[in-house]
């Protein structure tokens, strides 16, 4: 049996996977963190075996496709926002314990991505990427204005800032969504605003680019989308930005064998059989590694570039399940 682990909200890339599983008449089961948290689906763990609606997962599951597990910000228990947030934190922590147990218990199953490296560390990955031969824009993590000024001057006033890891959306009590994920260019006006010591932040050299790549990776194969980010002002620094009139165009593209080979090497070092990698193609004709996300968004890129990424994953899941 193929097991799909996902969340009720906060992800939409798994839907097409489910479509393909259904179309190809696979033997599959979907479990979400939310579904078992509130008892809508029956789950029992006893004597080291996991039963889901009376199916013995410990015996039946041959492979697992893992997306995300639970979206705490979406859980509504009580009206008091603050108490709701604090209760959510506990519920999410409990559910993450269950996820870890699934990892530990279903060890004989093939996991996509593999158990463990789902929570990759961006900083460690930048260093690893550099060590295996990728170009990586210089970066600095600091909370000191002096250090920031030095880094700014060293890079001729062209630097960006973004999260060290991932920022989650935040919502105000009156329904406004605060999205801080986008990369921003740092200029002298912003630096002047900062106190001598500030909250620990990530800065990186701004690479003047021709365009960007989002590379979907699965089982030593790259499915690449070229992001024409420089066609319009809005998407030049962060290609994910969009408004009613503008968004970056995407086209499918074949990357060089050399880049593909280095990506395979990198993913094998990380023990990742799938993931989404972001690259820049600089004006200097070099490719720069930005980051890898094992459970990054795949749906939009795959669909808009006709990459059929999800179908290949599903065919592999079915192959494993039939072995």
């Amino acid at each position: 049996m193929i097991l799909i682990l996902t969340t009720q909200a906060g992800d939409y890339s798994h839907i097409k996977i489910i479509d393909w599983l259904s179309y190809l008449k696979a033997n599959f089961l979907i479990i979400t963190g939310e579904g078992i948290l509130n008892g809508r689906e029956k789950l029992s763990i006893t004597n080291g075996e996991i039963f889901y609606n009376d199916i013995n997962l410990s015996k039946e599951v041959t492979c697992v496709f893992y997306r995300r597990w639970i979206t705490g910000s979406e859980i509504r228990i009580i009206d008091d926002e603050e108490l709701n947030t604090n209760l959510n934190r506990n519920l999410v922590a409990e559910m993450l314990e269950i996820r870890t147990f699934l990892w530990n218990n279903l060890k004989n199953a093939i996991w996509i991505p593999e158990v463990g490296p789902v929570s990759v560390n961006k900083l460690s990955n930048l260093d690893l990427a550099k060590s295996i031969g990728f170009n990586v824009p210089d970066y600095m993590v600091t909370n000191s204005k002096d250090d920031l000024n030095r880094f700014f001057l060293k890079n001729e006033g062209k630097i960006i800032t973004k999260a060290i890891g991932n920022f989650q959306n935040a919502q105000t009590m009156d329904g406004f969504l605060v999205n801080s994920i986008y990369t921003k260019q740092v200029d002298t006006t912003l630096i002047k605003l900062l106190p001598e010591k500030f909250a620990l932040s990530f800065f990186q050299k701004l690479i003047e680019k021709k365009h960007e790549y989002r590379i979907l990776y699965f089982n030593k194969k790259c499915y690449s989308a070229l992001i024409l980010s420089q066609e319009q002002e809005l998407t030049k620094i962060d290609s994910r930005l969009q408004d009613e009139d503008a968004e970056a165009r995407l086209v499918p593209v074949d990357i060089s064998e050399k880049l593909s080979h280095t990506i395979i090497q990198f993913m094998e070092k990380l023990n990742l059989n799938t993931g989404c990698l972001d690259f820049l193609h600089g004006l200097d004709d070099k490719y720069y590694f930005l980051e890898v996300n094992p459970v990054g968004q795949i749906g939009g890129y795959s669909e808009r570039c006709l990459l059929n990424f999800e179908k290949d994953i599903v065919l592999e899941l079915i192959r494993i399940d039939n072995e």
Partner: protein
Amino acid sequence: MNRDNEIKQEINQAVSKGLIPVAFFNSVVKDTKCSKFKSSNLKMNRRYRQTIIPRGYSNLTVSKVYELSQLTSK
């Protein structure tokens, strides 16, 4: 000042006081109650829009939504 600008300024102030990372500066703030937000937050096939996936407090499950989307696609 609009409420979204007010929130943006509050966040920028927190950055300038050194309370939150610099990457929070000029965060995008959107009114989720506004219909324009609801119609433009994802530009994908209607079938794959996140709005058809149930929220955490819904009685539906992803499996049920999948069944629904099968029905609506026919």
